């Protein structure tokens, strides 16, 4: 096998075009002229750390599909799919994203549909009751009826942080969600779904000038209004380590996760933490895999992640995670101590040059 070549060919970097509408909506266009498809996403600066009722931001995301200013319930999904597109939405810690991938010729339809619900969703008590029930099924499916469901992103924040905003999970519980009212939804929409609190991103087979023109046509008439200021999330660092134990009836082996605060986005340490996670946990030869899984047999699997919901997902404060499933004869504390030793060693010595290069190369093909 030959030695690594000096540097990877830089990926062709497409130019990002930016535009701001008079109502405050920010537009990003990333053209890929040869593509027969377009992707469009509207992200609002509101997530589950913005909510005062557990799970409300996520329930509201479901309700954004229940009809809008000029469309009835389910029409959004029907129009996207009948025109050959796919759609979904996801509620994150600090933002909620609605997105479509469609044939390029359907771009204007997608913009019309998104603008219509930015103007006014149509939310009824019946829709709230049905979607609260759907969310309850979603929680059973992804958390309560699955081994290691929600682990560790549901549990770690409970000991890493103290405020409600930082500690609660994004799902909430059915009884609380079913009690949500139409008035509460109207208030949430008014506070958080203003055009000035949103970013519209378009990529794929689209001409940037045309994207600006179509965005102005469909979103330009959505009235500007003041959005709520983002929540204050800052918390002091932990004075002493904290430990939490939970029982999972479905888990065949114990799992352990260790979280620590990580450098905020935009600071030099943030990207370094993303690369450190790759050095530690990405690939068979990564430090944690080599040490914990193969040499010391303390874990059957191990991962390192820069961010409770992955890298580039949320504001400060966020956490750097190491997560391992322990072998039957390793205690979780012993496995956690061994992981800490690996981190301490990396912190003291730094990565070797070729180790760093491998991690960066892998990240290049990961996105």
């Amino acid at each position: 096998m030959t030695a690594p070549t000096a540097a990877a060919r830089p990926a062709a970097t497409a130019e990002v075009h930016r535009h701001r509408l008079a109502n405050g909506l920010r537009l990003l266009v990333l053209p890929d002229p040869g593509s027969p498809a377009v992707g469009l996403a509207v992200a609002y600066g509101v997530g589950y750390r913005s909510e005062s009722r557990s799970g409300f931001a996520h329930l509201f995301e479901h309700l954004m599909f229940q009809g809008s200013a000029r469309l009835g319930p389910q029409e959004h999904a029907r129009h996207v799919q009948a025109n050959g597109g796919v759609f979904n939405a996801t509620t994150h810690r600090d933002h909620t994203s609605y997105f479509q991938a469609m044939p390029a010729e359907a771009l204007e339809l997608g913009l019309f549909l998104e603008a219509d619900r930015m103007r006014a969703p149509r939310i009824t008590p019946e829709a709230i009751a049905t979607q609260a029930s759907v969310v309850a099924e979603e929680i059973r499916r992804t958390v309560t009826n699955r081994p290691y469901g929600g682990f560790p992103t549901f549990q770690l924040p409970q000991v890493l942080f103290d405020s409600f905003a930082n500690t609660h999970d994004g799902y909430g519980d059915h009884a609380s969600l079913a009690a949500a009212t139409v008035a509460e939804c109207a208030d949430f929409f008014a506070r958080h779904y203003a055009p000035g609190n949103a970013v519209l991103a378009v990529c794929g087979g689209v001409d940037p000038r045309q994207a600006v023109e179509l965005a102005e046509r469909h979103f330009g008439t959505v009235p500007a209004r003041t959005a709520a200021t983002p929540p204050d999330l800052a918390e002091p660092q932990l004075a002493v380590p904290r430990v939490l134990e939970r029982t999972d009836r479905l888990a065949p082996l114990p799992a352990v996760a260790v979280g620590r605060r990580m450098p905020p986005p935009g600071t030099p340490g943030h990207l370094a933490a993303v690369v450190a996670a790759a050095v530690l946990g990405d690939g068979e030869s990564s430090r944690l895999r080599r040490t914990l899984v193969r040499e010391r047999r303390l874990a059957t699997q191990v991962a390192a992640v820069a961010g409770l919901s992955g890298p580039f997902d949320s504001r400060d404060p966020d956490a750097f995670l190491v997560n391992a499933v322990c072998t039957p004869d390793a205690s979780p504390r012993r496995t956690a101590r061994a992981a800490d030793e690996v981190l301490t060693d990396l912190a003291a010595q730094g990565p070797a040059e070729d180790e760093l290069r491998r991690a960066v190369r892998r990240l290049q093909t990961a996105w």
Partner: protein
Amino acid sequence: MTPAAAPGAVLLPPLAPPRPVPPLEAVDTVLPTGLRVVAARRATAPVVQLRLGVPFGGSTARHAAAAELLSCTLLAGGPGADRAAVDDALAAVGGSLKAVVGPEELLVTGQVLAEGLPRLLAVLADCLTGAGYEPTVLAAERERLLHRVRLTGSMPARAARAALLRHCFGDHPATRETPAEEQVADVGRDEVAALHRTALVPRGAVLLLVGDVRPDRAVAETARLLGGWSSPHRAVRMAPLPAPAHRGEPVLAVPSPGARQCEARLAAPSLVRTDPGYPALLLADQVFGGHFSSRLVQRLREREGRIYSGRSAIEQRTGSALGTVQFASAPQHAAAAVDGTLDELAAVSGDRPPTGAEIAAARGYALGVQALVRSTQKGLADSLHGPLLAGLPLDWPDTVAALVRTVPDDEVRAAAAAHLRPEAYAAVLLGPPAPDRPLP
């Protein structure tokens, strides 16, 4: 929350003219070793996707265990190499390889920065021609595999699938998607190495490269680097599936103490993708349950709030096909959700056949999604892999798309009536035993 004009009268913006899709630049050839090699250019990123599929049928439970041990040890490398060295060599060119195996196929999936393709192929060739199955490596992988087998057993979705396959096909090899613990513990190193020699062979296998490649050059590189992987044997396909047993019988309750949700699985005979009736049935199935706007999802999720996700699909298996339905629902809703499913099957195959509007929407969805998937490197690789391994020509997806575009509505209705009748389905419902059912 905003009383607005009644919906339905909205003038939607028009569609732009469709963009012409350039023909796929590709080479499709068979090496002297019997390996079919396909390289297709899709230069959207400086990356190449690799798929190597080898038919991997077997008749015994021991085969399933040996195949799993083989797949998780294969990429530990040739003699003298170790897994970390193999992984380092790949990572240096942004590459990765992984192998999985099922009752029908052993599949190696890889990706690499375009300049590193020769190294990816060289590493793969080393593993295919010289995997050592060193006893210490095998012992460690066996231990990890046993943990994975136990974890799989505790996953309700996987347990439900296993229950459905047992219910429909008894002891057929297709039911062995997860090996048995005692077999994994028992299979020896020599058995794994022998399986590699006789079954992991190029004749009958397909290697697919999709990405930033010149197809002729990529095929030449493959011939050079993988030419030494040869065998007198031919890869073995799984025995075809019979029609599911227990069709039209009441749903089989499978107790799963402590479960918080019921998992429903249904299966019926369906049509293979080369059947002339397939395009029509594909659209009928889409109308019934194949996408979010389908009757099944609209009823169970959007009107009744009884499921989060659920869908029907036509699963292509070796020489046969299965029409499946799956969803999960709270224990107190599950029986009603199964009844609702059977009602919708009865309606779509009986007195409420697919409407013109439903068929048009299903057609638009099927064609659009296929075009979307094929616009990305990974999507194109994954969508070509199955038909190629089944021995179909490279342009098979285009052939099906043309048929889906033109199949008459009446044929779609006839397909629904013939294949989506509730009595064609066998069903299992995995969940808490009745007295154990938790409160909502």
